[in-house]
């Protein structure tokens, strides 16, 4: 069953076509990789899917509860409320806020109390606020960040900042999770831990995941399917084995790396 379908999406910046008629389909529950050389347009495609940019042409549909929701043209917050969450390649945490606050903010759409209870701190506010905090801490536990809930995000080590980005995205309660180079800058041990966490949250939250990654061992290891982007175009897609032996991929992209992985 298809959950996300991007159809011939295009985006140009001036003369440069960063994403050119790229089509991509995710089946429910899949873990799919998105690879390609630097500047291929991977992050731009994420930005299109999540509404940071509006596509020049093409459509993006999300299928939820048997209904098709057109995402192109919606604002990012609407796309997020529809169940598409992401992390950022260049970490964009709320740096000067605590770990807990980062997650709480992402839980905002679960809040039912209105403005009056928040001005007056009525019991209704207090009860819900406590529930939000409890849920956030549960989430942080998965990433072993619950002990650090009161630390400022900017003071976390790099790897933990990447973890917090994922925790924050999960707090929005997504059906599709987009991870932009989650293992960037991690050592092999950290990457292994990350791999374990990705598998765990996928099970636990019943997620469909699309993952951009340069670390080929990670991609080949956990992805069931891979899309390859080059100059904004999808030049290949298939299972890791198919991609590994795909001639166009080897030519256009990182031949040796793919073979060695």
């Amino acid at each position, binding site marked *: 069953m298809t959950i996300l379908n991007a159809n011939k999406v295009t985006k140009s910046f001036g003369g440069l076509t960063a994403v050119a008629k790229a089509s991509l389909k995710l089946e429910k529950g899949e873990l799919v990789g998105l690879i390609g050389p630097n500047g291929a347009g991977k992050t731009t495609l994420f930005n299109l899917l999540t509404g940071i940019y509006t596509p020049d042409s093409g459509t993006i549909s999300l299928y939820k509860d048997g209904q098709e929701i057109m995402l192109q043209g919606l604002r990012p917050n609407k796309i997020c409320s529809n169940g598409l969450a992401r992390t950022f390649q260049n970490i964009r945490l709320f740096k000067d806020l605590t770990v807990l606050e980062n997650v709480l903010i992402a839980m905002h759409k679960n809040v039912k109390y209105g*403005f009056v*209870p928040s001005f007056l701190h009525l019991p209704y506010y207090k009860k819900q606020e406590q529930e939000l905090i409890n849920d956030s801490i549960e989430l942080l536990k998965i990433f072993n960040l619950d002990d650090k809930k009161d630390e400022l995000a900017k003071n976390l080590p790099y790897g933990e900042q990447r973890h917090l980005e994922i925790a924050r995205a999960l707090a*929005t309660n997504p059906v599709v999770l987009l991870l932009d180079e989650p293992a960037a800058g991690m050592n092999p041990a950290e990457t292994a831990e990350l791999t374990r966490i990705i598998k765990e949250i996928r099970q636990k939250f019943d997620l469909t995941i699309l993952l951009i990654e340069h670390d080929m061992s990670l991609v080949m290891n956990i992805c069931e399917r891979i899309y390859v982007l080059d100059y904004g175009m999808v030049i290949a897609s298939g299972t890791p084995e198919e991609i590994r032996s795909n001639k166009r991929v080897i030519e256009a992209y990182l031949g040796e790396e793919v073979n060695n992985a």
Partner: protein
Amino acid sequence: MKKLIALGLTYAVIQILIMTNLISDYLQATLVTICINIILAVSLNLITGFTGQFSLGHAGFMSIGAYVCALITMRTSTIYGFIIGVFAGALAAAIMGFLVGLPTLRLRGDYLAIASLGMSEIIRIIFLNLEITNGAAGLNNIPQFVNWTWLFIFMTATVLGISNFIKSSHGRACISIREDEIAAEAMGIDTIKYKVIAFVIGAFCAGIAGALYASYFYFIKPDLFGFLKSVDILVIVVLGGMGSISGSILAAILLALISTYLQSFPEIRMVLYAAALIAIMIFRPQGLMGSRELSLEFIGELGNRLKSRKGRV
């Protein structure tokens, strides 16, 4: 509970000082200025310090509150007229905030600064030219209803209301915009909505401040609410610390005291005032409080730091 006791004590002590005439009329005017400036600074802090939207139009909202309340109380000179006047003034300011905020806050960047500056100038010019507001001469003999009790009620309500709001999920949504607007949107925060909300709440409170001003000083004219007044309020916010409510309160008190003290040196008053500001900003560029809040723990920590510094020497 501790908070309530502290508030009650503050109110009672000052009330007694006023009743026993230990606070002269002149000092009373300073006290009123402090309270009004606290309301203005804390509400501007919500817009600028917490939500990260640079606004230069706070005096404009203040003037709406002042004129609306003045016009109502001059016709209905009763305490009910006054209360209605305050809320009508605040509401009118809030509506104006909505009308200006909705189109400009959709844009990223500093468009708001320019738009809000333009808005407050337009409001000033409208008051300057209307017949009902008596043009440049302004309104005189506005019935005086404001006393320490009313000031205290409105000031406390504003400060507590806004600091509670900041600690709610709605307030966190505002803060996330300041921290990273794109990330906030990607996490499902309707950034336009929350920018407008912060702006409208801020305008509402500025309207209250204006109404209190009109009713205490019983004389208003458009020139009182010009660009310089907006800058004055911004100075308090920056000096106290962007995103610190107790900072705004401290700075409002400190600046009023400096300015009152300097009244005895009229010739060099503004020079000294500016020099004091520059000095503070050199030594505390993040403002007196940074983005922290004054609390008992914070004072304890300060004490410890001082102690350890002494220990080293």
